[in-house]
Structure formats: structure tokens, C-alpha cells
């Protein structure tokens, strides 16, 4: 396969979250914390609003008491096609990959936090404290994901270590990667099947079809960041 053919075959990974199906159980948040070695919030970090949540449920309150409607919108990193975060990084610690995943190289990050300010979705988190887990959990970290030290910025990676594992398996079995073989932990864990993941450039894929649906929208679309996470608003 030459370089041009390879470029054509490259997927553009994206996510669709159906807000009609989401019941805000936070299963995605828990799955993400476990998968990506994110230390659980402490009373101190919560009080200072410094807890790390790669997948966060954004609250949206409508109406006034007693007629209040609370909507919770799951918010991972949007993996924007035009990401503002990588433009401001002075050391090249964050970059967009060929398949559209925004990478964060912790060893390069100097912790200046320009990117956390630049991200309009507040999807980036600074490690204010050294990571700590309860004793029972400290021995069951995921060996496929590094433990980030204090002083670096981190964010959702679309669980790209899972992509590599799936690719390795496909290569060992001498076949192409099958659709649905690579899913981030949040998508896999969603009990109401509200999350979809796949190649946005493949017109036959479920995510590409859902992303084109009339119900589809993206967060802060007018900023021109072109996020690759689509939401489906309430249906008929």
C-alpha cells in the first residue's frame, strides 16, 4: 500500500451521543476513570474545582423552581478538526494525529496551562496534585495507560490505546480492523446504548449516518473548531 492509498484508507474517528437515550447514569464517567487511571476526586480537589474528569456531565438547568428541568450532557474531549489547544502549546506537547485524535504527550508538557484556557469545552485538566488512589485501587491500574505526574495537562484520548490493541490483534490475524472493534471505554460501558463510535468518513458507518441526521448538533458550533463529537437532540 503506497502513501496515497494509505491516506485514503485512514479513518476519521468520531463519536455520536444520543441525548434522548442518555439517562445521565454517569457509567461513562466511571468507565473512563477506571480505564484511563484517573485518580478519584478528593474533598480537597472537589472544593477547589480541580478534580479531573475526562468525561464530564455538563449540567444545563432550564426553568425556575418548582418547574426545573435539568439536562446533563456527557462531554468528552471533542477532538476538534481545528483544535484551538494545539495552536497555543509552546512546546508541541499536543498534536492532531492523522486519524484526527488529539494527542497529549505528558513527557513534553511543561504545565503552562495555555491549552486548558484555549479549550472552549473545558475538556483539559491540569494535574494540581500527585495522583493518589485508595489502597485497594492502587494495584489495579491499567498498564496500557501511563500515570500522569503532577504538573502536566491531560484529557480524553478517545482511548487510543484500545485502537492500537485492536490494530495489533487484526495484524496478528492478518485482516483489516473491523467496524466496532475499537470502542472507547465510555461507549462500551453505556448501558442505554446512547453512544456511538466509528469512522466519520465511512458513509456506511453508523456514526457517519447519525452525524448527518437532522437531530445532530455540535457544542459551540459557531466557534469553527469543528468538533468530532456530535449530539442528537430530542426526537419527535
Amino acid at each position: 500500500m503506497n502513501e496515497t492509498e494509505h491516506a485514503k484508507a485512514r479513518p476519521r474517528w468520531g463519536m455520536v451521543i444520543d441525548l434522548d437515550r442518555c439517562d445521565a447514569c454517569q457509567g461513562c464517567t466511571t468507565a473512563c476513570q477506571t480505564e484511563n487511571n484517573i485518580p478519584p476526586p478528593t474533598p480537597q480537589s472537589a472544593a477547589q474545582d480541580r478534580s479531573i474528569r475526562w468525561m464530564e456531565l455538563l449540567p444545563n438547568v432550564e426553568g425556575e423552581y418548582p418547574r426545573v428541568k435539568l439536562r446533563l450532557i456527557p462531554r468528552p474531549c471533542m477532538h476538534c478538526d481545528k483544535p484551538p489547544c494545539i495552536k497555543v502549546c509552546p512546546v508541541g506537547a499536543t498534536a492532531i494525529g492523522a486519524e484526527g485524535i488529539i494527542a497529549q504527550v505528558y513527557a513534553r508538557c511543561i504545565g503552562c496551562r495555555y491549552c486548558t484556557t484555549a479549550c472552549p469545552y473545558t475538556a483539559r485538566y491540569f494535574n494540581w496534585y500527585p495522583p493518589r488512589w485508595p489502597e485497594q485501587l492502587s494495584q489495579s491500574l491499567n498498564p496500557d495507560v501511563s500515570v500522569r505526574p503532577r504538573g502536566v495537562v491531560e484529557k480524553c484520548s478517545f482511548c487510543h490505546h484500545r485502537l492500537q490493541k485492536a490494530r495489533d490483534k487484526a495484524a496478528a490475524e492478518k485482516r483489516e480492523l473491523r467496524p466496532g472493534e475499537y470502542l472507547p471505554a465510555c461507549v462500551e460501558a453505556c448501558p442505554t446504548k446512547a453512544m456511538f463510535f466509528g469512522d466519520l468518513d465511512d458513509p456506511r458507518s453508523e456514526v457517519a449516518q447519525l452525524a448527518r441526521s437532522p437531530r445532530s448538533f455540535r457544542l459551540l458550533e459557531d466557534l469553527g473548531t469543528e468538533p468530532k463529537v456530535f449530539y442528537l437532540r430530542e426526537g419527535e
Partner: protein
Amino acid sequence: MAFDYLRGVRSLIPLWAILAGCGSEVHQPVGYNHDVHVNKLQIGCDNCHAGSMTGQVAGLPTVSDCADCHAEANGTSDEEKKVVEAVKANRPLVWQRLYSIPSHVFFTHRRHVQSGGIACERCHGLMKNQKRPPPAPLVALTMTDCINCHRERGVSTDCTTCHR
């Protein structure tokens, strides 16, 4: 004052200690001869480095691996005697790692050797011709070597390929 303090600290650290620290040598418990095992006896790398084809790390042989051939002395060398003694006493041979990878780099032998079909020599040099264990890696690998090889083979050079 600060200048005097620095001079005092420097005098405490002799130059030889700094040089020794920079090029620290690896000493192995036995003067293992790769040339005899690989070239003469045609034993494959994965016989002793069990993970070198399919594992994440290549690994180092245990004394029971040596026992397969060295339960009794096959020759007359002093180095073999050390192995036979260790096998008989069931005492582990503490081999030292020659290569180490920083914790922020994710590397698997499986991906490179089995899936990529890269020969061991590409990163480890002509280890098979070594008559004594080398005190330092034969090839000093840097990230530039990784990137160049990835480019040559048209493999992804995205940060996430190696850094997670």
C-alpha cells in the same frame, strides 16, 4: 558566598564519578557467549528471550532455561561451570537488562517483531557475534532512530503511536 558554596559542592564530586555515572557499565553474572549459542548451535533468540517475538518485553532467561542444556557440563569453560553450579543449586542467575525504555514510551516486541517483521539486529546490533556480554547496548537508540524507521516503513509517526 554562593560561589564558594558551589565550589565546595563540586570538589565533593570527583570527575571520575561523573564519568562513571554517564557510561555506567552493565556486568552480567556469567560471561555468556552469544556467538557459540546463536551462530554455532543455531539457537534462536526466542529460546532464551521468551517474549522477543510475541511479548511486550523480550525478557531474560531463568536458570531453568539454562538447565535444559546445562544440567551437566558440556564443555570445559569456567563460565559454563558457573552456570552448572547455579543449575545444581537452583540458584537464580541475576542477568542485568541492557536496554531500558522510558516510562512514557509504550513499546512492544510483538508489534515490531511479529507484526512488523523487523529483525532483532535492527535495534540490537550484531548481538549474535558477541563472545562476551557487552557492557553497554551495541546500538544507542534515540527517538530519532524510532522516527526514521517509522518514516522508512510508512508507519504512523503520530505521537499517540508510542506515547500514551
